[in-house]
């Protein structure tokens, strides 16, 4: 252990810039590239005045809209202006509401973050133990059951899963609300039940994938000789699973849990629309349908940035969790 940390320290102080610096530079460049793609795509479509104001808008209305949104300036100027604003936390004016984009996003952001947090915790709490159990007791009853259930859930898109949940829990059992519109009224704890079904819908979109990955990793680790020698020493199964298999099977799953946030974005968008949940996913779909480019750009940049940063953090966590990578002095 001492040697390992020595090598790690040596690696960090070598002439190559440290891992943290390189990671931050890569992060900044990726975010810049995303901003170019997002802004470039919307600029490519030309002046949206006609789409926003409708077919019977007069010439002067169109001209006023174009001037008010600086659409007569060159694309590069608009991009630099927009990027400078974003860096100062100013996301510009919505085409549709006329007010600031941030005013649209702000009340919805907290609710969506809470929803994502619930879903993500559900994913971790369900899939890691289930996958571990299935992998350790390979081809046992638990494994067969887990494989069957995950394969059938994975075959359905989120909106179908959500629909099934509504039929079972809201219509037949009458346990939970049919939609989540109540979220915008009252405090958080008045409307907690409105979070359950959307969070479950989002989680079920990712659980099959994580269970299968965890199972495959646990199976690989379990085939190593140190695991077999532990079994021969008479170690109990819970101790074997948690102390021998889990730590060694975890790193790829941590990476996947970070990457899975991309799939969560899709789940959030679908679930919020399905349940009428007033969050940023619903705002994103509504803004895209009404061609409100500034709002979509702002939300895309925020979610994209969050996604890239979380992946960076999960990469760092994998390095911390994996002695081999630590020693390589990355």
């Amino acid at each position, binding site marked *: 252990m001492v040697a390992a940390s020595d090598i790690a320290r040596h690696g960090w102080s070598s002439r190559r810039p440290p891992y943290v610096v390189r990671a931050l530079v890569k992060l900044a460049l990726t975010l810049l590239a995303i901003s170019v793609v997002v802004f470039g795509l919307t600029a490519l479509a030309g002046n949206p005045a006609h789409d926003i104001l409708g077919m019977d808008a007069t010439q002067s209305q169109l001209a006023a809209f174009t001037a008010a949104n600086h659409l007569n300036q060159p694309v590069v100027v608009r991009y630099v202006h927009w990027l400078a604003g974003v860096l100062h936390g100013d996301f510009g004016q919505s085409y549709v509401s006329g007010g600031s984009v941030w005013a649209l996003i702000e009340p919805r952001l907290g609710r969506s973050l809470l929803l994502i947090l619930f879903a993500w915790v559900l994913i971790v709490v369900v899939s890691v133990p289930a996958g571990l159990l299935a992998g350790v007791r390979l081809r046992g009853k638990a494994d067969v059951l887990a494989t069957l259930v995950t394969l059938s859930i994975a075959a359905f898109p989120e*909106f179908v899963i959500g629909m099934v949940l509504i039929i079972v829990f809201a219509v037949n059992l009458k346990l939970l609300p049919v939609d989540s519109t109540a979220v915008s009224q009252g405090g958080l704890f008045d409307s907690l039940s409105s979070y359950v079904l959307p969070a479950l819908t989002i989680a079920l979109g990712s659980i099959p994938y994580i269970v299968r990955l965890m199972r495959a990793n646990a199976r690989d680790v379990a085939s190593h000789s140190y695991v077999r020698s532990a079994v021969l020493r008479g170690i109990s199964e819970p101790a074997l699973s948690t102390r021998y298999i889990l730590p060694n099977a975890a790193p*790829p799953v941590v990476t996947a849990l970070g990457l899975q946030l991309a799939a969560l974005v899709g789940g959030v968008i679908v679930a919020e629309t399905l349940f009428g949940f007033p969050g940023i996913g619903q705002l994103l779909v509504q803004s895209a349908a009404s061609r409100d480019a500034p709002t979509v750009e702002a939300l895309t940049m925020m*979610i994209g940035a969050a996604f890239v940063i979380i992946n960076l953090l999960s990469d760092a966590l994998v390095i911390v969790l994996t002695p081999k990578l630590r020693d390589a002095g990355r």
Partner: protein
Amino acid sequence: MSVTPVADATPGNTGDARGAEGDRGAGDGGQARRRARRLRDFLSIPQAMVGTVLLALLLALTIIGPFVAPYPPSAISDTPLLGPSAKHWLGTDTLGRDIFSRVLNGGGSVILLPLLAVAAAMIIAIVVGLLSGYLGGWVDAVVTRVVDVVLAIPSYLLVLVVVTAFGTGSTIVVLTVAVVYAPYIIRVLRAATLTVSPLDFVLAARARGEGIRWVVFREILPNIGPTLLVEIALRTTYAIMFIASLSFLGLGVQPPSSNWGVMVADNRLLLLVHPAGVIAPALLIGVLAISINLIADALTEFFGDRLHNQLMV
């Protein structure tokens, strides 16, 4: 012709690729028999059999459906919101359209649009991925960077940005999904090319003085066939779910189409009073996804494809 080397090169993995060259001398009858035997071997995998049967049933429903439907899909045939009856097997929707007829008509775009999107993505990815893996150097560096950036943006966000800029509709969704999926496929095909290009038969072709087009499309492409097939099947499953979800969100196929995703969206507010209009199309989308999922699974097993597990895609 292009299929033949794929079928020949498949036992085991790319290591057997040189065998493909030798087998080419066999007569056409021998090849046809060999192909039939391989198809039988494939269908003996339970997932392959079940998946193929389900898919065949759905395709039959989709192709024959429009001809046997009792009413035109968008015609107002009766009073709205009738329950199931002999006249309307699944009842009528809010506008009085026959739900059974709409279900029979709604499969075409659900199946066709993802296939078109995957085909377009494949064409982009085969050219870019193979050249990038084979050429290496700055071409590969540029391709890898661009792929990394696009993969850093969640697919839904990219599609939403494009819809904001260019509007909704099937054509836009197909093109966007193709562009969004291409980087994922490029990554897989590039990795597959890297494993094949140092092999002897590629070196031999280069030593013979073959041009880059011959080496890439006649030597490398046929020998990454298994990876390609698995990738097509996997991507089609994802695309079916993705495009159905986009139609459900109101961003893909537009009403009054009877697309199953659109039907679920149209009828979902009536779920409590009139569940048939939601359950039937939702179930069919699920069965379609399951059938192609099973086939993808069986293909992975059949070809012993390890690349997809390694790349975690």
